[in-house]
Each structure stands twice: as structure tokens, then as C-alpha cells.
């Protein structure tokens, strides 16, 4: 089992939901986060005064998938989140030791499916 954490642009979220359907994943979690990286912040003007925002709103998606699903999930996130400009985000993949479905008590692959 793998955990996939993807930091993406908020405006790409709509396209992400299609991943669920096309790859038959059982679920994902989404968090609103603020982050800073190579994209830097942006400026707003309030009554003529410049205000710097160092952190930009981003979406963090988190999902646990089976080992054999991981590559295709990562590929499709990359293809949908890509714009080619700074701020497209990053994806992190890590191993998961075990999983439990609370309702049934199933463990491991059965709990993820």
C-alpha cells in the first residue's frame, strides 16, 4: 500500500475528481492548505497600499492506494495538474504499514479497497 500526497493548484481540483472515476479508486481526502515555494506569493492593493502575500492557497490531496495502482494514479495527477508554470505543485509517495476499516475491522489490502 502507498500513500500519495499531492500539492496542487486549487483551480485544478475540478479535473482531479475524474481520477476517482477513471481509476476506480475508493476515496481521497482533500485539504485546503497555504504554502510557499518557487511560485512566491502575490500582491494585492488595498486603497493604494501594496500588500504582499507570501503564502498561496493550495489543495493537498491525500489517498491510500494499492501498490499496483500507485503509478497510474501519480501519472494521471501529473497530467491533470500540469500547466508548465511555477506553482504546479509536488507529489510525495510513501509506504503504508497497515490499514483498518473501522466499520468491519478488515485490515490491509481489504481495508483500502
Amino acid at each position, binding site marked *: 500500500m502507498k500513500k500519495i500526497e499531492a500539492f496542487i493548484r486549487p*483551480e*485544478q481540483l*475540478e479535473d482531479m475528481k475524474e481520477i476517482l472515476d477513471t481509476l476506480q479508486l475508493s476515496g481521497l481526502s482533500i485539504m*485546503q*492548505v*497555504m504554502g510557499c515555494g518557487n511560485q512566491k506569493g*502575490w*500582491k*494585492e*492593493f488595498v486603497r493604494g497600499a501594496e500588500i504582499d*502575500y507570501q*503564502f498561496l*492557497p493550495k489543495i493537498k490531496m491525500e489517498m491510500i492506494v494499492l501498490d499496483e495502482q500507485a503509478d497510474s494514479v501519480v501519472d494521471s495527477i501529473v497530467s491533470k495538474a500540469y*500547466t508548465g508554470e511555477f506553482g504546479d505543485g509536488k507529489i510525495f509517495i510513501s509506504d503504508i504499514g497497515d490499514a483498518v476499516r473501522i466499520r468491519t475491522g478488515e485490515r490491509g489490502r481489504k481495508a483500502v479497497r
Partner: protein
Amino acid sequence: MDHGDVAWMLTSSAMVLLMTPGLAFFYGGFVKRKNIINTLMSSVILMGVASVLWVLIGFSLSFSGDVAGIIGNLKWAGMNFDGMTDTTLPYPNTLAFAVFQMMFAIITPALMTGAVAERMKFSSLVVFTAIWSIIVYYPLAHMVWGGGILFDIGSVDFAGGNVVHISSGVSALVLAIFLGKRKNYGRTAYRPHNAPFIFLGAALLWFGWFGFNAGSALGANELAIHAFLTTNTAAASAMLSWLLIEVLTEGKPTIVGASTGLVIGLVSITPGAGFVPVWAAVVIGALVSPICYFFITVVKKKFGYDDALDVFGCHGVGGIWGGIATGIFAQKSINPAVAWNGLIFGDINLFLRQIAAIALTIAIAVAGTLIAGKITSAVTQGIKVSPKEEDIGLDATQHGESAYPAFNGMD
């Protein structure tokens, strides 16, 4: 000059002005959170543009003189008349009338902006509404209220069913089709991001509408009281009938439904507020909800146009129903300004003239909107934001502001 009349007209004018920020909140609650500032600004900008245009040329083109029954002349450009002493003016309080009418010229183009929400370039919206005011609104105001052809044929429109609601509703539909759909229309749910804002806006609209309709009696008189009562009655009746539809079809009554119902109730009574008996207001309001509900849920889906906030479904359709209903329920004994009784009292004359007026209004709105749209498109090099800007949101891309920056406690 009657002091009571002046006091009521100025009060009414201020109430009608308040409808435009009310409308801004009403619309703003419906859009995505990344687009609320743009939606608010689409109404707010008209408090500037339409006010100045009105003072410079609008009032004159609408109410001074007559050119072929279609539009006025420029004799009163810049409000160039002496409202205090000139006894040749058509109303004893002509300047107060100009102030009152200005508020209508502000809210009418603002109504349209709901249909094109979340995807129209702000610069294009400003140019479009300015051109539209000149080629659609002023001529219509002249034709209906300023002694033009619709006035002459004997059709009636108490507070702006044709001029305000049908014209803006139909134009909104044409502009929405001309502009094209939102990027994810049909693929994702565009659900309201702030239902309390919708109700805040609806509440301000209800309050302001008393100025809109009762003020259209143009004086502090019995007709104003009558219009006040029909206005409240239709709003109440339509709100209840919309909620009843919701309970019957979806199971639960919603605040968005209550807000929608009361607003279309106000729309439907607008042309007849000073012509129909109070009991008819109950009927007009009760019927507008199922009619609009049908257009929004069935007709819009069938044709697939992206009238984002249902401006056509609410104001266009509700206004058309109101105009027809005036032809059905109007009563000479209530207001001698109408030459015939309505259909229900056995006279078809007014009914036919109402239909004719509606048809002409629709024709002008369609033609004027297409012309204004083409000109705007040429001036601002396209009228739609890019798909990427649409994704990011119009608040950031058109205004450089964010409505809810504190969503996770960073500031």
C-alpha cells in the same frame, strides 16, 4: 410642488437605489467564492456608470420630446431644465421624477449581469452595459413611459415589467448565449457558496421594491398605498408557492427557494401593481413560481444555455407573466390610467395590447443586445475571460482582490 409627494418620491428613490447593492448580494451568494467580488462589482459599477450616463443623456433621451415614438431628444442633456419654476414640464416634480427614474436605469442593466456571472471580462461588462443602456433601455423607457409608441397603443406597465424585467431578462438570455457557457457547465455543480447572502440580498430587494412599485404612483397618494399592498402580497404568495413546490418535489423548504420565490413574486406584480386588485396579487404571485420553476428546471436544461443565475428564468419569464397577468386582472376603477378592464372582466383590448408590448420589448431586447454585444466584442477584443482565468476565479484575475482570505487563519 406638493411636499408630501416630493418626500415620498425621494424616499422611494433611495429605496430603489438600495436594491442594486441588494441585488449584488443576492447574486453574489449564488456564485463560487472565487467570483463573489466580481459579481458584486458587476452591480456596483452600474451605480457609477448608469448614474452618470443618466444625468448626462439618459433622462433626456428617455423623457424629453419624441423622435418617431422610439426615443427622446437631447434637449435636457445634463439635466438642463429648471425643475423648480418651469411650468411646461410634464410632471410637477420633474426633477424628483428624474431622480426616481435614475434608480431604475441603474438596476436594470445590473439585473442582466447575473446571467453572465463567473466568465465575462469586467471591461467588456462595463462597455456592454453602457451601450445597452443607450440602445435598449432609454428607447424602452421612452416608449412605455415617455410618450412613445407603447404608451400610445394603450398598453400599461406600472413600474417596469417591460422596461426593467422583460428587457433585462431577455437581454440576459441573449448575452449569455452570445458569451458562451462557463468552462465546467454541465460537468460540475455550480451551487451557491453563501445562502445567507442570497437571503440578505432578497430582503433588501423586497424592502426596496416598495419604493420601486409604490413610488411608481409618482406621488404620496392612494394608488401608492394600493401598489404597496399588492407588492407585498405577491411577494408573500410567490414565496409560499415556491416553497410548496420544493416540499412536493424535493421534500424540504430552502432559504434559497424562499429568496427566489419572493423575488419572482415582486417581479410578477411589477407591471400590474397599480392596476390589479389585491386579490389578484395573490393569484399572480402564486402562479409565477410554478411558471419560473418550470423554465429554470426543464426548459433551461432542455436547451442547455448557461443563464448562470437564471436572470431569464426569473426576470424575463416572471416579467412576461406579470405583463400578461396585468392584461388579465387590470381594473379601470383602481387606476383610470388604464383604458380597458382586463380579460377576466370580459374585455380583450388590454390583453392584446399587453401581448403586443411584450413582443415588441422582446424584439428590441434581442436586437439591441446582439448589436451591443458585437460592438463590445470589437472594442474589448472578446468578451470572455480565458479558461485559465476562469479557473483561478474572476476576483483574482479581474480585480486582484480576494473575498475570504482568512479561510484558514493565515491573516
